[in-house]
């Protein structure tokens, strides 16, 4: 149950409800309409700065909703190391916005000083487990909290990979002490692109390892599925979601929409659908 602190700001764990990804085009509508969603999730990097309209909007929204901060730029699997300045900014954002969850991706993002501003795929090797787990551990120590690490969409697989993706994620969680954020759409996209079985992926993860679920839409470009977060969640992903919460229990579930962003009510409608599924599976009030 979400509780309010002495200022009336929601604190405590994020409830097992559906939330929405907060994007700047919806700042105004979220503040005015106060949609009945369980929580908000914001991209950490969009609120890195000392001031400005975006920071003020999130501070205001934070007084009404529990918050999850979701990083897209740290790339903790980068073999060149952690960008310390970026990590320091994440810590500042945590101090300012007091999120209940903080997540990053199982990916890399920079090499030779250049950042590619993308969630780039890792080879599933023992060395990559070691590098990602060590850097997740260092980040957790510096930030003073447990991170959730999310599986990314993949379009290619490294020839060097020796582990299945879920074995890789479990090993990283075991060695670093992080939890997992399971993106069901990413599992579906990667499975379709690389000829894998998404149900086997879900069934192979330990029941207690997952703390949050992501849902989003994807696009098709010829034979390739592109994780563009630009449309509604597709039926196949809703089916996988049912399967996932049957296995992992009721979990905070986020609907992301980053391109061709619709009116807020459409996004909230997707979150309602996730809440109905949570309710049906676990007898929760939707």
């Amino acid at each position, binding site marked *: 149950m979400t509780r309010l602190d002495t200022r009336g700001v929601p604190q405590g764990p994020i409830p097992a409800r559906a939330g929405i990804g907060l994007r700047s085009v919806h700042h105004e509508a979220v503040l005015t309409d106060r949609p009945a969603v369980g929580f908000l999730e914001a991209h950490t*990097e969009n609120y*890195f*700065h*000392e*001031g*400005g*309209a*975006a*920071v*003020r909007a999130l501070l205001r929204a934070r007084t009404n909703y529990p918050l999850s901060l979701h990083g*897209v*730029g*740290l*790339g903790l699997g*980068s*073999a*060149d190391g952690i*960008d310390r*300045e*970026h990590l320091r*900014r994440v810590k500042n954002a945590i101090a300012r916005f007091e999120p209940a969850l903080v997540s990053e991706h199982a990916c*890399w*993002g*920079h*090499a*030779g*000083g*250049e*950042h*590619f*501003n*993308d969630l*780039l*795929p*890792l*080879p599933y*090797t023992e*060395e*990559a487990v070691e*590098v990602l787990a060590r850097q997740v551990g260092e980040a957790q120590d510096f930030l003073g909290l447990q991170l959730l690490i999310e599986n990314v969409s993949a*379009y*290619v*697989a*490294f*020839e*060097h990979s020796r582990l299945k993706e879920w074995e890789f994620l479990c090993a990283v969680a075991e060695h670093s002490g992080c939890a997992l954020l399971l993106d069901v759409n990413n599992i579906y996209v990667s499975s379709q*692109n690389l000829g894998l079985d998404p149900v086997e992926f879900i069934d192979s993860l330990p029941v207690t390892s997952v703390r949050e679920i992501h849902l989003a839409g994807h696009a098709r*470009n010829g034979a*390739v599925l*592109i994780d563009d977060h630009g449309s509604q969640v597709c039926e196949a992903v809703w089916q996988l979601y049912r399967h996932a919460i049957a296995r992992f229990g009721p979990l905070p579930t986020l609907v992301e929409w980053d391109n061709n962003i619709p009116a807020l009510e459409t996004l909230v409608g997707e979150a309602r659908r996730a809440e109905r599924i949570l309710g049906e599976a676990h007898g929760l009030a939707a």
Partner: protein
Amino acid sequence: MASLREMQHAFAAALRDPAASCPVLPTANLAVYPNHSTITFREALEQTFPVVRRRVGDDYFRQLSAHYRQRFPSRSGDLHWVGRDFAGFLDEYLAGGEYQWLADLARIEWARAESSITAEVSSLGVDGLAGYAPEALEHMVFGLQPSLRLVASAYPVYTVWLTNQAENAPPVDQSGGHEQGMIRARHDLIEVRKLDSAAFAFVSGLDSGATLGDAMTTASLEARTLTGLLGFLFSEGLVCSLTLRE
């Protein structure tokens, strides 16, 4: 077996040059990644420089973005900083041509981007001067809003910026001469305002830490215009602190 670092550097080479090889399957799908990072970079630039994009059109902006990225790749996981060197790049890229003024237009847009992430500080009213003797005024140093940016150009770029707030605005006559002005954040909005050259020189002097007396001298400001300018600075909430320099 290649190390993780070697694999990532090989992947990075393939992101920069689609002809470079990388040990991944299916090979045909590798192109998704360079496409994505090219588009992400360009969209971040477009978001910061919408008026430059409007003036040059999508095709030329795409070309500018690609050449700029070769010279100034992203150095941060925070895309906000992608445009930091764009105006300087345009100075060189467009040197000697008829579109040199685009660099100064980009300076206005970068100033807006910087202002938009700078915290606003509480400001002083003109009564903040009340406790000081009149003869002390010339030794006064003004702390101005941290979001204030001052941009001067040999071209009428403020007029270009203002007339291009909508798509398909007509071209602006570039023989209109130099313009200068200020950019600042106020109540979550970013203001862009033209200043006359004396006011610009005076505010620039104050902003760089000169005393009121020195800023007036540098700007060749006549004493009779001082009252109006000080009134403007205070009423606009631009003055955040006052200190006397001994």
